[in-house]
């Protein structure tokens, strides 16, 4: 079950365990902040449950929440940070 998944984060290939959330994958790949707030400050996942919207990133071109989405092979993730 626990095989690895390959995805690209801001153009860089990353390998993470299957079944983890996109938010977790980004953290595993070393990204601490994944979004820039209006004042330029870094922000990252906070509520973990689809409420705060801090973890939003573009997944395959569409804005989605990293804490709700699961990783999949070939995913293209773009952060705004």
């Amino acid at each position, binding site marked *: 079950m626990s095989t690895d998944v390959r995805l690209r984060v801001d153009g860089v290939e990353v390998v993470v365990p299957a079944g983890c959330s996109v938010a977790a994958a980004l953290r*595993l790949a070393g990204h601490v902040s994944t979004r820039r707030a209006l004042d330029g400050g870094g922000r990252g996942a906070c509520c973990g449950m689809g409420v705060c*919207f801090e973890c939003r990133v573009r997944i395959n071109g569409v804005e989605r929440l990293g804490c709700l*989405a699961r990783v999949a092979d070939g995913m293209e993730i773009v952060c705004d940070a």
Partner: protein
Amino acid sequence: MRELSTEILVVGAGPAGIAAAVSAERAGARALLVDMQAEPGGQIWRGQWNNATDRAARRWLTALRGSPVATRYGLRLVDFAAPGLAVFDGADGPLRVRCERLIVAAGARERLLPFPGWTLPGVFGAGGLQVLVKNGWPVAGQRIVVAGSGPLLLAAAATLRKAGAQVLCIAEQTGAADLARFAAGLAPHPGKWLQAAALRGRLAGVAYRCNAWVERAEGTERLESVRLRAGRSVERIACDALAVGFGLVPNTEIAQLLGCELRDGAVVVDVHQHSSVAGIYCAGEICGIGGVDQALAQGEVAGRAAAGSGERPRALRRDCARSARFAQTLRRHFALRDELRELATADTVLCRCENVRYADAAACRSQRDARLQTRLGMGHCQARICGAAGEFLFGWTAATPRPPLAPAPLTCFTEPTSDPEPPAQESA
């Protein structure tokens, strides 16, 4: 646009929604269970779908697997195109679901309160970090402070520790006397006792401090340390993460949009979990914070009632009553202290989405005034975070939700051109 139809639509696949959908099918109705997460389980059973470790989770997740309930995950309810026609947004585009009756089991979120540094990456909700970890967020070897209020702090700390984190301390803002009374109040709830004791067992060696709260999070690009106040002393603790939450707030937005009556921030229901609007049932934390046993009992009642099986078996009535008493104990003993209203400084961001400063919001007359004059609550989260904070900080009543319930592609709001798909059951 994809379209499905079902007899009973259950929104939210936490304990309440799962129990509702399974019970509705057992009572002879067709149910469709939808959740915005990738798997069923809600908050407490996150990550257990393929690996249930908890007894109740195993029981209900197995029941769900074996039941003809149709399921769809990764879909968020964002609007109703008409009464009985729900619009969901997902990675594959919008989905419409036609239903005769609706059960809303949207659970609760954490109350987060502003203090200097709370927007730094590395500061999470307490349950927030817990559920992130359950979905693979790495914490092994990290130094973590758990803070805020309520029994969830223990559960969160236990999960973090199990995942290899070093939990530096648990700071509970409630005083020792109230905590002792809460513990005593647990006596009539043997299950809760066991749970609490087991959690403490798993947390052996972790400092648990009452009357203590985090005043400030420090760091430049990410969290580096917190300042913890306990009584008159303040201590600086270097750490990698802070998990801080101040209790739970029911997610009532869906019910509110449908016109259901609320009281004290929770949906009002009758003994059949029926709301004030015909055909709409609500179950679980959205009817008031009460824990997993209450969610399961209410879910069963709602599922059976929505399926037309009105009478409630004695055992179920007993479960409901007992869990309602526990909910009361919970509310009574974790009241938030006044000092927490003083943590934010003038420059502290209150609305994380629109970066509204505390002082600018505080100068307004009401939540609505602040919305109009400062953009408070006008961003992505639609005041889910700052609204619950403003309620505590200023006594403001949260604005009534407007559609969409969450930001969603414009394509969710146009009329479908394609033919409806067959009923959910056949295509499930």
